[in-house]
């Protein structure tokens, strides 16, 4: 008996190893198990919606609508629980990867469950509001899945085996060198260098982070100013210009890093708050239905 369990466990370990080797992510977890379950569920709903003839017509108030609505509301609460689950370390069943895989695919199936629950009756009311919020949450999640699948490679390429702090440290080093190299310069020339030193590499709002464009970059401005200036000694100026170019490159790498990270993270700022807005609207939707029964 004991050997039986042992064998089973060793087989499970072996499977796990294969998965590790293939670097099986949450999308292809267990050979797309949750994608299949979710797809089957959607197909079942679409087909049965067409086949079942409810009285008087399809909407949230038919028995079919009630069923889909109940499934959908339960699913929304369960999907929200990912936020709780990921903060909780467990070692037994339901690995976080499995949970995330189910979260993604069942969340996508909610498009069908929720929309078919409405019976395609939409209007300007709390019921449609809940549907719209649900769709926004799902779309933001879909965006998240896409960027998680595509952007990490770009992030890694840009990093060039540097850590974040190493990128910052490089800028600090150029700043120090700039500071000493700029000492012989005239006050007109030191002003732009000083501005470049004063520039916060993390400055800029969400727009700059997402676009990666910093039109008022002091380092670039200093580079332009010093290239055209004739006031200081040429040799000292050339040295400063060289350092500024190097700093600019380091800054660009950091900024690209920040941009990719922003693109990777920004959907959560929609996904999470709107999830809670959705749960509130969903509560209002359900209570309103029974209140004005």
């Amino acid at each position: 008996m004991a050997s039986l369990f042992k064998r089973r466990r060793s087989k499970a370990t072996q499977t796990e190893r294969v998965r590790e080797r293939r670097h099986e992510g949450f999308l292809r977890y267990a050979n797309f198990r949750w994608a299949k379950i979710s797809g089957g569920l959607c197909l079942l709903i679409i087909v049965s919606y067409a086949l079942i003839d409810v009285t008087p017509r399809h909407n949230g108030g038919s028995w079919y609508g009630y069923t889909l609505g109940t499934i959908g509301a339960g699913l929304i609460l369960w999907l929200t629980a990912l936020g709780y689950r990921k903060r909780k370390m467990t070692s037994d069943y339901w690995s976080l990867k499995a949970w995330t895989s189910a979260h993604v695919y069942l969340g996508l199936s909610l498009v069908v469950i929720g929309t078919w629950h409405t019976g395609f009756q939409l209007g300007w009311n709390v019921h449609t509001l809940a549907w719209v919020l649900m769709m926004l949450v799902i779309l933001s999640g879909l965006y998240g899945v896409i960027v998680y699948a595509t952007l990490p490679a770009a992030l890694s390429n840009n990093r060039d085996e540097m850590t974040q702090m190493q990128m910052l440290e490089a800028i600090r080093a150029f700043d120090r060198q700039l500071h000493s190299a700029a000492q012989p310069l005239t006050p007109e020339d030191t002003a732009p260098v000083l501005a470049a030193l004063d520039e916060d590499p993390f400055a800029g709002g969400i727009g700059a982070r997402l676009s990666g464009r910093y039109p008022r970059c002091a380092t670039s401005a200093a580079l332009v100013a010093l290239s055209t200036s004739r006031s200081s000694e040429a040799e000292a100026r050339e040295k400063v210009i060289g350092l500024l170019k190097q700093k600019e490159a380091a800054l660009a790498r950091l900024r690209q890093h920040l941009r990719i990270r922003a693109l990777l993270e920004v959907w959560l700022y929609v996904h999470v708050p709107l999830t809670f807005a959705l749960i509130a609207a969903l509560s209002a939707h359900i209570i309103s239905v029974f209140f004005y029964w």
Partner: protein
Amino acid sequence: MSFILRRISTTKTGKQIVRDQALPGDAITLGREGSNIIHIADLAVNPHHATITSADGRHVRVQASEGLGFYINGRTVDAADIDSAAGAELRFGGHRLTIAREDEMIILLVERIDELSQSSKDVDEAKAFSLAGVMPGKRLGAWTFAILMLLAFLVGPIWAWQSFRNVDERPEGYHADKAWMSGPLSSAHASLKNDCQSCHVEPFVAVTDKACVGCHTGEHKAMSMAHANAPTAMLLAARHPPGVGERILAGFAKTFNKPQGRCVECHTEHEGAGPMLATPQKFCADCHDGMSARLLKAGFKPAVADAADFGTIHPEFRPMVRPAPGAKPIRAVTGKGALTDFDGLKFPHDLHLQATGGVARMAASFRGRYDFGKKLECENCHRPEADGVRIKPVQMERDCAMCHSLAFETVGGVTRTLRHGEPDQVVADLTAYYRSTPPSRPLQLGGMERRRPGDYAQGQVYNIYFREVAVRPNRAEDAVRAVFSKGGACYDCHTVYAPQAGNGWTVQAVDQTSRFLTKGWFDHDAHKETKCADCHTMATGSKVATDLLIPGLRQCRDCHVGENGARLVKVETATESPCAMCHEYHSDGGKPWMPARQRKVNSAAITNKPLRAIYGVSLVTGSPGRGLYDVTWRTPALHGAERGG
């Protein structure tokens, strides 16, 4: 020798080492350039920034030299006089110059206080490199949005309901519970769009019938007559066994207190603006589909056949017919050959509808005088009621007399006619006519010519005339007999009974049925585009008036299919027909409710315009206004028929 420059350096262990250095001269220069006595490697400091002097070894004067000043006590100045005993802190760029006095000496302490550059500042890696530094927190957003949603769409609506719960009509303006409206109200209830409380009276209580009859005081006092009289057990037995879905629905209804059988179950609201939808056929078919078997099983005798969908399962029509002359109307039994209905008239439809022949030629000869074409059409004799729904009973003066004239004499340009509908009067009129008028005089009897004897002999002119005069009153009886007998004016159309003991000539009463299909509602007006013969297919071939020419299910199914388009035969232009298109549940005599958009749009084909010569006919046949010819409609045989089925 009164200035001492003090430098403080910090070891790795955090220990501070203070080194003092006496500065030469009374004027100490300070700047970025190496030639200065105090050299500050700070790009924010000018090459020759300031000069520090002291006249008395105690008071210090600091004078900026190249335009850039320095900070003292938060202000930028170009020069400052400082008592070194009191001390002061000055800022040059990122450096601080502290002036103090120790042992009669002026101590100048220079320290870098600002970071070399912004990037050199300490950062929180987790925050700086993520979006957390530039976005408000997710938790904050979650709470804000959730609370806003609850306020706007839960608290607000409940507040609105609470504020107006016993109000008949709310004031204009926005009411928060309108956000709960699942769809626009139908046009009949559009005025209630602000007044949720008029139907949703109590919270968590499904809309009650009481809320409906609060306004609808006149209508639908009872359920349908057919259903109201049925025992409850029978009604329950008629229902089809619930499927999975209906059990789910019933479960919801039971759990959340939603009773069944309320007005709103058929009359669904919030289904979109425009007229309220007709009741879907499912509400009927739930019971009537396969009902007879269920009723038989439960020990009841089914009175109606199964009906599930007009296109596929619907019993053949059973029109009201008179099986024998003068008999009471009964519901026809279908499937036993052609149906007959004795209305008391003789009327060969085929003869009248022929394209050629005597009737057609006569009609053609009347073109211009009446609205006849080259031949007679159905609508020349059958005219719709004012509302267009049914066809008026045929009226002799209006519908037959154009051709079938009863005129028998012209007096001074006025035609005298026999009185239709009064056989005794006809007899009297004819008798009086023959008594009061002499035979027409032969021409030979006129003039002043002398007549010779012998003319009175038999066969002569005089004899012809005077013998006629002598026997003329007796001719009346012959004329009367002729009128009522074969070939006579009455006999052609009516069943005439010869005089019996104590009775004169009698004509069988005519019974025209105003509505053959009493359980359903057929609207001729809605079928204006269709030719009569398209449905009344047997009319052109009918030789006797007893043929029932009411169309059967087959003809209807040429166009009408089930609610969802189900059909058994090929249909070119399908009209989807739920039960409620023809059947009225509440039996209150009205038209079944069906919004106009669900009916077909028609263009006028049969019109009810008055005939051009109708008044002319009235002149000929006498005014019909005496009510002599008003047809007495049959009393409906069934209780429910009176109320429309």
